[in-house]
């Protein structure tokens, strides 16, 4: 009997389904960007409905049973083994997401999103009135929901491990604990020494009034020197700087403060670090799971590399300070290089994480991690979180927290259930130390180029070794692949000690 058959490439079909999800997410990013930048204020209600509809479409697609059956068919197919490593990786990543998305019941997803919205509103009020007790019941509710979610994802594992793994695949509490303990123990004496140093910076050098139009010119200079392609991106102003987009359209935002141009300058460097990652993902991986970075921590490593390791180095400023003076029409004419570099590398423990300098920053993250893991282990209660917070701030940074607004209530993350997401920020720093160590091995002279304003070699290195790897590997594997060593805090601490002992003249 004749059969009428047609061959379907199952792998192609799977990727087609994935592409649609990427496109829908990109559309959502575009309308979010608009909401944060140019949307007229009355548009908010309509926009929320649009976003909800788009999210519904995405959810239906990431849990589409056809993805499940395609995955099964592909894996059972006789030719599965003949697929390339990249193809198998794509299948693996789709499978991992599909499992996660289908394990969580729809009701729970909705409960979490509803509680996030409520929690966020109450957090705002509580923060404004410094009232932790007001926020506590909402915090407990979202915490329980996230714990429930973790249980659905993997009932055999510690919930905090599950949440960490969602943010940084491959990381566990044990790994983070040991990295952060080393980091904390290394940072404490360094910060102490810096604080005691008689050589303190003159920050007023930076706090000179600098009009917005000149600061916009600085942003353009930074874009040029870092090779951020403005034909595939743009720079706008928002309350909180961010990066959004995909491949050929990746946009950044910054915030201009008239009395501190460095605020925007370092935001722009930071966000460009994120944007370059997206712009330099391999073209051939576009619309595939491997066409993205492996984790928030890795993304953060790239933004911080541009912002801190390059952007705060004296070599970079040897080139850029004269440019800055020219662009800003002599506002900074009398400023000298050493004093300037010292000022932009000022270390000063702060109450608020987002105001922290690169050295004390990780401490803020460590405190959050320690609290989160103890909460999940049931070792501490929600009742005395403010006391625990304040005690740690005193111990690690010698800072007295006067009220919860500047303490436990400062960050938005927990109100939306973002447990296990803070460590990524510090992991980015740790990865940077190790990348830097590698770069200095293969290009010992790399900093000489910075003095000439030539960032090509170092950014190319990042492009080839980090960006172009996409999501072929999970973060810990990728670090090892690039540097040949397991992730360690050793190199990051070495970098900090070397740089800051020089600047602050301490041992």
């Amino acid at each position: 009997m004749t059969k009428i058959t047609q061959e379907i490439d199952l792998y192609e079909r799977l990727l087609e389904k994935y592409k649609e999800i990427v496109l829908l997410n990109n559309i959502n990013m575009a309308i979010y960007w608009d909401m944060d930048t140019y949307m007229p204020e009355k548009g908010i209600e309509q926009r929320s409905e649009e976003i909800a509809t788009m999210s519904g479409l995405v959810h239906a697609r990431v849990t589409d049973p056809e993805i499940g059956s395609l995955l099964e068919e592909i894996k059972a197919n006789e030719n599965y083994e003949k697929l390339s490593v990249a193809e198998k990786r794509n299948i693996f990543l789709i499978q991992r997401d599909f499992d996660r998305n289908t394990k969580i019941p729809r009701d729970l997803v909705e409960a979490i999103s509803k509680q996030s919205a409520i929690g966020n509103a109450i957090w705002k009020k509580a923060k404004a009135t410094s009232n932790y007790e007001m926020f506590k019941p909402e915090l407990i509710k979202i915490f329980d929901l996230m714990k429930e979610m973790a249980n659905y994802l993997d009932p055999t594992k510690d919930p905090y491990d599950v949440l960490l793994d969602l943010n940084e695949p491959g990381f566990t509490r044990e790994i983070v604990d040991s990295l952060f303990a080393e980091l904390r123990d290394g940072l404490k004496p360094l910060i102490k020494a810096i604080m005691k140093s008689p050589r303190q910076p003159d920050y007023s050098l930076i706090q000179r009034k600098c009009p917005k139009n000149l600061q916009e010119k600085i942003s353009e200079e930074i874009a040029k020197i870092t090779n951020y392609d403005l034909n595939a991106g743009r720079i706008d102003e928002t309350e909180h700087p961010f990066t959004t987009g995909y491949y050929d359209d990746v946009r950044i935002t910054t915030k201009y403060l008239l009395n501190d141009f460095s605020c925007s300058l370092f935001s722009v460097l930071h966000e460009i670090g994120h944007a370059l990652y997206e712009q330099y993902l391999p073209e051939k991986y576009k619309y595939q799971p491997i066409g993205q970075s492996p984790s928030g921590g890795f993304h953060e490593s790239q933004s911080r590399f541009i912002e801190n390791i390059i952007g705060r180095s004296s070599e970079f400023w040897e080139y850029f300070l004269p440019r800055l003076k020219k662009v800003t029409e002599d506002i900074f004419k009398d400023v000298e290089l050493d004093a300037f570099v010292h000022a932009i590398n000022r270390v000063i423990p702060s109450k608020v994480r987002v105001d922290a300098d690169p050295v004390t920053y990780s401490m803020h993250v460590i405190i959050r991690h320690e609290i989160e893991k103890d909460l999940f282990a049931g070792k501490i209660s929600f009742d005395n979180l403010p006391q625990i917070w304040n005690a740690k701030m005193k111990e690690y940074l010698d800072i007295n927290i006067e009220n919860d607004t500047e303490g436990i209530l400062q960050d938005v993350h927990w109100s939306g259930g973002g447990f296990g997401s803070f460590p990524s920020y510090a992991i980015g720093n740790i990865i940077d130390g190790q990348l830097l160590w590698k770069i200095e091995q293969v290009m010992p002279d790399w900093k000489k180029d910075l003095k000439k304003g030539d960032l090509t070699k170092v950014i190319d290195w990042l492009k080839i070794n980090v960006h172009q790897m996409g999501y072929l590997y999970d973060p810990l594997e990728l670090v090892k692949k690039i540097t040949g060593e397991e992730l360690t805090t050793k190199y990051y601490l070495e970098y900090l000690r070397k740089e800051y002992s020089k600047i602050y003249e301490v041992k």
Partner: protein
Amino acid sequence: MPKVVRKIDLYDKLLAKYKEIILLRNVSGQIQWDFEVMMPKKGAPQRAEELSLLSGLVHKRSTDPEIASLLNEIKQHKDYDKLSDIQKRNVLLFERSYDKLTRIPTVFAQELTKHSAVATPKWKEAKRKADYSIFQNELAKMVELKKQQAAYLNPDLDPYDVLLDNYERGFSVEIYDKIFQEAKAGLIPIIKACMDSPNQPDTSLIFRDCPIEIQKEVAHDLAKIVQYDLKGGRIDEAVHAFSTGYFDDVRITINYNPKDFRDSFTATMHECGHALYEQNYPAKYKYQPIGSSSSAAMHEGQARFIENVIGRSPEFWEFYLPRFKELTRGLFDDVKLKPFIHAINMVTPSKIRVHADPVTYSLHIILRYELEKELFADKLTISELPSFWNEKMKEYLDIDIENNSEGLLQDTHWAWGLMGYFPTYALGSYYNAQLQTQLSKDIPDWKEQMRIGKLSNILGWLNTNIRNKGNLYDPLDLIKNVTGKEFSAKYFIETTGEKYSKIYDF
């Protein structure tokens, strides 16, 4: 026996389906706006993929068979008659749009799209080389396809009637014949009188260099005057002026020409007129079929009301000229009111439709209508079109067409298959004239009010009578409801004659 039942409100369910379509269309509109105004240029291919995905999603939802069964169930339901008029109107409008989309077989719709993709570059080439023969065959095929499309939409009517009704509800050859006959008879003498008048405008009063920054200030000032709400909208610069959006977020774009401020002036007034329609639908109609304009031509009419009825009126400029002089920092200081009003109301027959003034414009449209009508009635062959065109241009506007680029081939519409669409371009101004006549009865001193810059009553009148009614009525019904009279072109002739006889002194 007990039954496990759940009651579903079928009407609510139908509206929920409609709402999803609207939301997706709005998202699509938003990212198109971004494409035109904000997007870095390398983003184009990604954006094209996003737009095509969205339009597929919209199409799928708009043709969802569940809509048909919901419509059926609702209409056959014992309680259908108890629905309010508004609810019934929603059902009717949704049914109409569903029908339009589903009566055309997908294969045919694709063929039409495909042919348009073939015909458009041919038309471009033909226009560039002024060689009609390059486009002729594609045009002939497009006409055949459009006849076929009309047969799918309604096999009982003449194809051209179907197409006319498709673009503006309620219109037919019979109606257009009547209004265009009247318009032609009235306009040709007015144009002649203008041309023959010894009193001709001094264009040096308007063709002056005016920096874009200044024009932007003027645009924002005008937006405020016509009450365009910038908390629910915004003004940006783009290559083409357009308006886009929905209810609480309706944006306009303006094109600026440093050599001719009129481009941005008319664009601002025109696009504000469109945006005001959208911003002033009743909030309770949001996400419902009635939360839209009565028709495309009514929308265009609202745009031209602000642009022409207000923006080119002598009374408005009596108020605005001093303010305009101040904003333009001396560039127009020597300009006197009367000659200036004459200059911005200059009447000059032109070869090209899009360059035409409000008086001669209609004749460009009438010519196209007559041509399409004859063509669809097989009274005119494809090869006869150029001579038909050129003779009419001579007859109506006393213009000699030298080649087809500036004649028959000037517009892209036919390559896109938009036969039957041109006539709607004339309607907006005719609607406005009839509305204006009623406005003069309801607010006899409305022009006096403009002289002192008091537009609130006029704008309020437009809100009450047009914008706030959304899509409760088809355009011909709406005009009749507001004015108490059947739609007619005679008001357009009257208001035009009255205005231009004063300006040109005849």
